[in-house]
């Protein structure tokens, strides 16, 4: 008993000494260091930025209503000077479609990730911080929701909504996406709220909401960021997958999924590489980029894995 106390005191001493000499680096700094150290992550990061930049600038120059216009005289043209990536079965330029499609897919992925993050953080924090009965009720509801066959529900809802576009699609996907996030955050919050600083803050009379968002949240922020980054890739995949299966965005809203869907026709797969290959490559590259960066962020958030 005595010894343990001593050790604890010693520990805190060491900690205090360290603090006195070096300021602990901020999370952003750690991430940046980690990325710089990992060449793969660095290249991925730059590549991803470049892609985003090109897509958003490029799609600004494309007239959305003009791009989706069917032109039966230009069906299935191979790449040429006029159409650098050829045209599809309805005579639409693949290059501008790729820009718009990538933009839509990225918007959806970001939209879903951010919305899921916001809802997840709120529900998770409330549940984990208050604990007890509130936690119990929220968690039972979450259990129920998590039990539902998500993919099937999304498909059913998508085929029932009369007018669906990028916005409604984000909503539908968010409706089922936040559950996992809330659970994760709740677990971490539960852990944090038993720590001394929360107790201290409570004793001092700080309002709960302030403790939750100003004190607990920053402490679990790194974890949330890691989780959201990796989720970004997953959400992009979910959108593409659903659209590929025909339950995603409608015909005249290009997305990476609708573009890849051209490959579902055997002739296109065998003979018209330009219709599906660029979008497929883009998605692979983007997913890998996000994943590599995500891994670096993950290492930065965990002292044991940190390389730098």
């Amino acid at each position: 008993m005595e010894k343990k106390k001593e050790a604890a005191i010693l520990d805190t001493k060491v900690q205090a000494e360290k603090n006195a000499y070096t300021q602990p680096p901020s999370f952003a700094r750690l991430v940046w260091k980690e990325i710089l150290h990992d060449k793969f992550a660095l290249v991925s990061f730059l590549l991803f930025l470049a892609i985003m930049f090109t897509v958003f600038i490029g799609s600004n120059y494309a007239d959305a209503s003009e791009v989706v216009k069917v032109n039966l005289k230009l069906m299935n043209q191979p790449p040429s000077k006029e159409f650098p990536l050829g045209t599809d079965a309805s005579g639409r330029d693949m290059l501008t479609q790729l820009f718009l499609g990538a933009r839509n897919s990225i918007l959806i992925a970001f939209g879903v990730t951010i919305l899921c993050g916001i809802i997840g953080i709120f529900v998770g924090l409330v549940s984990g911080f208050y604990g007890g009965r509130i936690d119990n009720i929220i968690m039972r509801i979450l259990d129920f929701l998590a039990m539902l066959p998500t993919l099937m529900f999304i498909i059913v809802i998508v085929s029932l909504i009369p007018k669906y576009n990028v916005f409604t699609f984000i909503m539908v996907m968010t409706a089922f996406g936040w559950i996992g996030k809330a659970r994760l955050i709740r677990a971490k919050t539960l852990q944090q709220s038993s720590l001394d600083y929360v107790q201290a803050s409570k004793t001092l009379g700080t309002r709960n909401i302030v403790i939750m968002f100003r004190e607990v949240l920053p402490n679990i922020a790194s974890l949330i960021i890691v989780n959201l980054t990796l989720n970004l890739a997953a959400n992009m995949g979910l959108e593409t997958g659903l659209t590929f299966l025909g339950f995603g965005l409608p015909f005249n809203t290009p997305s990476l999924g609708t573009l890849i869907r051209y490959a579902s026709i055997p002739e296109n797969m065998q003979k018209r590489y330009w219709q599906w290959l660029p979008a497929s490559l883009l998605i692979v590259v983007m997913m890998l980029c996000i994943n590599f960066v995500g891994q670096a962020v993950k290492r930065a958030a965990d002292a044991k894995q940190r390389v730098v």
Partner: protein
Amino acid sequence: MKKVFTMFLLVVLIASAFYGCSKSKDNTNTPTSPSSTSDEKDVKNEKEDSKEESQAEPTAAPHEQAVEQAALFPEEVVNNNPSIEGGTLKVALVASSAFAGVLNPCFYEDNYDAQILDWFTEPIISYDENFVADQDGAATYEYDVDAKTITLHMREGVKWHDGEPVTLDDLVFAYEVICHKDYQGLRFGESELNVVGVEEYHAGKADKISGLELSEDEMTLTIHFKEFYPSILVGGFWTNAIPRHYYEGIPVKEMAAHEKTRTKPIGFGAFKVKNIVPGESVEFERFDDYWRGKPKLDGVVVTVVNPDLVPAAMQEGRFDVAEFSTQQYPNYMNPTNYQYIGYVQTVFSYTGFKLGKWDFDKSENIYNPKSKMANLNLRKAIGYAVDNDTLAKNIYNGLRFLATTVITPRHGTYQHKGLEGYTYNPELAKQLLDEAGFIDIDGDGYREDPNGKPFTITWATMDGENADIIAQFKIQCWADVGLRVELYNGRLTEFNAFYEAVENDDPAIDMYDAAWQTGYDPNPASLWGHFSPANYTRYTSDTFDAIINDISSDKAWDSEFLNQRYHDWQEAFFEEAPAIPTLWRIGIIAVNNRVKNYNTTASDIEQSNHLIELTAPEPIQ
């Protein structure tokens, strides 16, 4: 390790991409791949010739184009190899969705079910190449114009699949089902009402149909008609018997959904149903007691396959017979293991307008002159706005043609060849809309209705091969003349859901795109008549009624008069435009080289399913 793996993945992807490139180049560089038989080559050459011709002579009328194109395809497969004993024919049912599986001639509603029905049952009367009833069927007939009767004589030895003999009482039963007041299918219409006593029976005033006079032995039936006109001999009376003993005790209301219709149907055709996987496949086996003779095949398997997958499936030899998409045909003009046969279909596609309601109690169409699409100029403008010719040439590769009337080229004798139809003329469309008061007030590029309110048309169209391209193209065409058209529910509608909604007059639908396969008889009564539930537009008019009555009257025995009235009818249809005929089509069927004696009319007019043979145990790859 992870990094290495992802790099490997990238390399594989890129490599496969280049492989894809080179393959496509190969295909474009080789002019013609060697084909196995000379016949196929001929077809191809002819095809190319015709293309040149049609380019040189773009003025050929659509009905001539149809006949020209159809002549390029043989009607029967060429196969001189010795045949094998038995074997199972693998038939593809080309559909984007599951088949409904209402396997009863009185109740089925779509062509997929009809294709399945063809394998196991047939009408008791057979028809010649002009669709006129002849004496080669399970029953023979004679008619008496003055007495207004047809007398049917059943052959001996025609048996249902369960061994019971087919009698004319089974035909009477079919009449009793169709004319029953609880019957909700499509078959009850003017040609049934033309039989004496049907009206009373339908109203529930009589237990029997008095106009059906059955002999003691049930092998002779005399049908008394109210009016006796030529259409009656062209499929104008009901000839599909259904087994009374099999459906005994089942109320008419429950028949369509009953398992005896859905999973255990019987008929008296060459094959009997062995097993049905609902919506997916039907397995048939040989019916040894088939009255025309024992079928040569052991069995037939009909399986649903998505149209996109047909070419690959045919090349791999997964099917012996498959309806081949005219859209994919140009990429597969020189098949090595299968051949094409073709024919002009009695099908026309049309854009219909919802103009009223079906009155279930009175069994008639009620036209609503205040409905949204009731403006004639609007309907005509919608017709003139769409460039169907470009659609036919580019999407269907010239195997569909601009339809000028609702009478197909297959019924050439009655066709009004002088009609131009709704050809592409956006300027005229705009002018018509201006005259009708549809003017763009707020300057957003779309016209407002005559009251100045925003005007949006809801259009239902089916999902299918390239359907989204076609839908988008048409919406563009309409937008070009200033009409805002939106898809029903914001998307293409699945086949079964589409007909469900159109049939039940879903008020959300203003306009729909559908197609009819007309029966043998081009008589408009069944598709556009006042009392026909299949008249989905629900449009009625005095001119229509008068012409249809004339066509369905004894005056029509005068063929000149009949022809005149058919011409009048087509003109009236063009003028009143309850629907815009859009496309006629040639159907092509891909048949594996192991199949013998298969022809395009196999189940259409001539019953020859029992003669089909195979020359190899498995489909040739």
